[in-house]
């Protein structure tokens, strides 16, 4: 589990150190740099995989950009020649890179200026500027070194976690299965593709484990009594509707029993976003470090509170330890966060007076929680008391 992130000179972030928990919620005004924090991890993930180019960035949900946009640029700030990124896990294993790409005549791929990998006790890769002619400066050494590392080494786990990292931004058309996902992944694509297959897997896992996850999930959708994945839905879908191989099929609670089935194409979009998040957090094939940009989109405030309150439990239920980073704009998200649990963390992201992205972990004091009934976090956010609001 990654405990610490350090970001230097990336987009609006000149210098940022973050102590992560299991569930990490980032709130802030539009344009303060919440997504930049996620993208910095995406760049580090690409580096951990051995190559930082547009293809590797797109694969991780990072918007590709020229060095003049990727490197911080501020009037008061002397731009660094490189981007510096570092992740440290709970055992102390560390992966750190500094990446170069000239502002003028940029290269398609970034070069590794320095690269360090440790397992917490010993250095595995320590490489400065690639002056040696026999090494390709655009290829990361840590990714190659993995073949020599024991599978249970903390360094291996850290690299794998970073390599698997991706930023998910689901959209309704892809969740409905109407358009293909440009970035397919297991268990779901970055835009929500193959949701039906992911839900089928989730259902199978829940049945085999005899847990109540599916019942709990359906409890979040008051109009549906069942959800399955089906291949044959001829009777439910117009021939003009394009579809993926499998389609989600819902059973409506209120419709007549002989005509109560509908597909993801006709279902409310909210349920699709809930299923997407659940599949990502619970599936055994999901990445161990997940980022969801705008987790709250399309969700009713009460539903998003209920969804957020389940995240820590879902991540704990998964077969392998999971971490989630997400951004949100709906204040109701905050009321679902159990901030008494140290693994659930809320970060207010702002721009300081120089325009740099800064963050603050919001820790509830006992005095604040005593006022929570009258002043829930959602209201305090709207009042401006948590920061993370625009001065409009």
């Amino acid at each position, binding site marked *: 589990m990654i405990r610490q992130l350090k970001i230097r000179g990336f987009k609006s972030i000149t210098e*940022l150190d973050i102590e992560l928990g299991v569930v990490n919620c980032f709130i802030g005004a539009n344009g303060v740099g919440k997504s930049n924090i996620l993208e910095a991890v995406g760049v580090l993930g690409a580096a951990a995989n051995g190559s930082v180019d547009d293809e590797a960035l797109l694969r991780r949900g990072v918007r590709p950009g020229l060095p003049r946009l990727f490197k911080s640029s501020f009037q008061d700030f002397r731009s660094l020649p490189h981007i510096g990124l570092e992740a440290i896990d709970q055992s102390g294993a560390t992966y750190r890179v500094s990446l170069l790409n000239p502002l003028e005549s940029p290269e398609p791929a970034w070069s590794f200026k320095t690269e360090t990998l440790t397992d917490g006790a010993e250095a595995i890769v320590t490489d400065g500027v690639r002056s040696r002619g026999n090494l390709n400066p655009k290829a990361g050494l840590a990714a190659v070194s993995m073949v020599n590392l024991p599978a249970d080494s903390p360094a291996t786990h850290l690299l794998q976690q970073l390599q698997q990292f991706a930023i998910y931004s689901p959209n309704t058309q892809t969740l409905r299965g109407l358009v293909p996902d440009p970035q397919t992944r297991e268990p779901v694509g970055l835009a929500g593709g193959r949701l039906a297959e992911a839900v089928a897997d989730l259902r199978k896992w829940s049945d085999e484990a005899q847990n109540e996850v599916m019942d709990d999930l359906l409890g979040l959708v008051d109009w549906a009594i069942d959800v399955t994945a089906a291949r044959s839905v001829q009777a439910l879908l117009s021939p003009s509707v394009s579809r993926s191989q499998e389609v989600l099929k819902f059973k409506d609670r209120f419709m007549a029993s002989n005509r109560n089935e509908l597909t993801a194409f006709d279902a409310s979009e909210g349920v699709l976003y809930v299923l997407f998040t659940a599949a990502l957090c619970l599936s055994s094939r999901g990445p161990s470090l997940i980022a969801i940009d705008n987790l709250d989109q399309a969700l009713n405030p009460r539903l998003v509170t209920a969804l957020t309150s389940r995240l820590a439990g879902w991540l704990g239920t998964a077969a392998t330890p999971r971490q989630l980073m997400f951004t949100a704009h709906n204040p109701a998200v905050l009321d679902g966060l159990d901030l008494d649990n140290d693994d659930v963390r809320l970060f207010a992201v702002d721009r300081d*007076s120089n325009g740099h992205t*800064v963050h603050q972990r919001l820790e509830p004091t006992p005095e604040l929680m005593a*006022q929570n009934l009258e002043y829930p976090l959602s209201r305090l956010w709207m009042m401006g*008391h948590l920061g993370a609001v625009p001065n409009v």
Partner: protein
Amino acid sequence: MSDPLRIALVAEGATEREVIDAALKVILAPRSFVLTQLQPEATKPDMGGGWGGVLKWCHQLAARSQPGGGAVEADPTLSNFARPSRTPRLQRVDGCPCHAQPLARQHRFHKMPCSRYFCLG
């Protein structure tokens, strides 16, 4: 790592914010800060702007504080903002033009928390 000062602002309106923001940049330089305007709150316009809005905001603050009002720095809902480094000097509210005195008498305010809020300590 940069550690900006987090400052909450209760003011008459957006113009005051611009002036105070510019002044703070000079006063606090080279330290950076994050200035968050609490009042007027665009999404809660019923308090209104001007000194009347400021007074209503103070009234709301007093309502969640100890009987008779309390210090701003004691308000747990504002714990994410910087605390004055010394006890601010209390000010009389005689000059407040928006019926502050009758309201203060009605609610038995001994001190007006708003006077503390503008002090940079």
